[in-house]
């Protein structure tokens, strides 16, 4: 039972109802755990939603949280494994005065492109693994992004 902190991805299938999100996040906050990212959306044609939670913590505590998640009445299933396909999206707003073709090439390397051009700014979107999104956001810095928004990770077990 190691105590060192590790990045963990937990997926939870829950009944889509009021207060279900706080029930889940309470289990993290009650232990002083931060949630790095959290995404929720309904699962089509069902009464369920799927949450993807990225957190960091000791294996033992995360295991305990996973068990407690199972215990919540509206929770159907909890997945907590290493072997997940993970993707995240980032949107960036960049002044139109920057080198747009360079930006476009950079975005393409991260499965993205420019999706909107306005009077003064453009918006680009990329979709990739969270680690690679970090890299992309580092690389894009030189083009003076005005705003950045990350979606948080979504994941599916293989």
């Amino acid at each position, binding site marked *: 039972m190691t105590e060192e902190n590790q990045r963990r991805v937990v997926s939870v299938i829950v009944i889509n109802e009021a207060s279900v999100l*706080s029930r889940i996040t309470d289990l993290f906050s009650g232990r002083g755990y931060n949630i790095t990212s959290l995404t929720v959306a309904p699962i089509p044609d069902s009464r369920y939603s799927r949450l993807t939670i990225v957190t960091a913590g000791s294996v033992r505590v995360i295991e305990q949280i996973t068990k407690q998640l*199972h215990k919540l009445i509206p929770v*159907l299933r909890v997945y907590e494994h290493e072997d997940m396909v993970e993707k995240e999206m980032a949107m960036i707003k960049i002044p139109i005065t920057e080198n747009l073709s360079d930006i476009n090439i950079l975005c393409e390397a991260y499965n993205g492109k420019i999706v909107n051009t306005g009077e003064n700014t453009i918006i680009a979107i990329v979709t990739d693994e969270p680690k690679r999104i970090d890299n992309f956001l580092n690389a894009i810095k030189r083009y003076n992004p005005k705003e950045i928004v990350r979606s948080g990770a979504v994941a599916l077990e293989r």
Partner: protein
Amino acid sequence: MQISGAQMVIEAFIAEGVDTVFGYPGGAIMNVYDEIYKQDKFQHILNRHEQASVHAAEGYSKASGKVGVAMITSGPGFTNAVTGLADAYMDSIPLVVISGQVPMSLIGTDAFQEIDAVGISRSCTKHNYLVTDAKDLPRILKEAFYIARTGRPGPVHIDIPKDVTAQIEEFDYDIELDLETYKPHTKGNPRQIKKAIEAIAKAKRPLFYLGGGIINANAAYEVREFVQKTGIPAVETFMARGVLSFDDKLLIGMLGMHGSYASNMAMSETDLVIGLGVRFDDRVTGKLSEFAKNADVIHVDIDPASISKLVNADYPIVGDVKNVVSDMLEQVGKIDSNNYESWRETIINFNELHPLTFHEDSERIKPQWVVKRVGELLGDDANISTDVGQHQMWAGQFYPFTRPRQFISSSGLGTMGFGFPAAIGVKAASPEKTSINFTGDGSILMNVQELMTAVEKKIPVINIILNNNFLGMVRQWQTLFYDKRHSETDLSVQPDFVKLAEAFGGIGYRVKTKEEFDAALKDAVEKNVVAFIEVIVHRMENVMPMVPSGGSLFNMMLLEKKGDK
């Protein structure tokens, strides 16, 4: 049938077989109280504080095995009840607690007596609901009772806005519950059970570690049979007192911080822990890395989250203890009780070396004597509740428990003020038994207003106040670990407990000798009235043995042998 939300609550109670509701009215819950007034199917007991209503419901539930029910109003009514919810949550007590809420249109406006009740109760209930439409109420009520009593039991809280209690809708309680996400497994895995039996058969020094889950599962008699047939010695947690009868030869005693020397040594020397309905609480295990160090662990529990939470289980079995033990009993023939003969002898030797006892004092009554004496005089005829402190531990150590559900105490949360209201609930559930509350001069004042409840409803609870003029348990720690700096624990200034009881219409006794105590108890039992028996006991008595917090179970402070001083 078309009825109001308030009537639905009443109908659901009747359908669930509720015969007693504990509560306290107020603005937001008045529609429901109006319906309580109109019915005669169940009794309502008006406690004098909402915390006491929930504790009474807990006592009722613990003594009867049924779901306890409490009802309170919004705002301060609800916040007063939170300690009770937390207490029931920690001790896995099935409750349905209903609170009023401000009308839907006012929620979120900081209305008079508005508080986010479900936000507060979320972390101290098994589940909770805010009802936004009376159409949902029949389902929610039915789910609440079901969730409270199944799986690992616990309190369920339903918050109902006032307009929802007035809303008229169709009521049908004959609905099938569709709880796709809540399916407690109750049957243990047969392969795991078989492996566990094989492990027991091979062990040389196996030990039953019996917990409160056995009582929740109504499995005490199966466990008694299992213990008997295997000849394996057993220790009980504080919560499991009464699973085995005190005179069972295989019962070593209670383990943990104030467990007996033999129990704690047995746990330290065993090679196979057979944990049934336990959760390896820190007050039981002491230092985890030293706990049952040389043992494999079988852990049977209904709650998967309890298994391997603190101590790794080599044989995890998720299931209802009653089912699992019944399944184990079918294979009990594979276990030869003769194998453990020398292990049993070892334990007898432990017990002879340091038996659980105390030293009498010629001047003042020793508190332990009082507990033992009540055991001698009332024994099986009494149900025993306690408050929290030294007196609680002495009750756990020295009362001769003979049956499950005889002992009712706040274990997980350790709530001072629990005892008296709980004993009222116990008496309401089990009127044929004498309801005793062992309490302290500190604890009794935390819900002393329940004198009025008990007197009004003629619920003759006998409170035995072991008066040491101290917050004794804290004083003990100060004496032992804070160099006798008794900071804010001296309760030399006290009310006149006799007059206090009398002021509410009860009877008070103040006793200083053993003879006076016997006479007072006899009188109180005969008169069958609400009583305070204040016993002036030795002030500086410590609960022994003691495993200092975080220490290893085998490193106990022990009672000084007579003449050691």
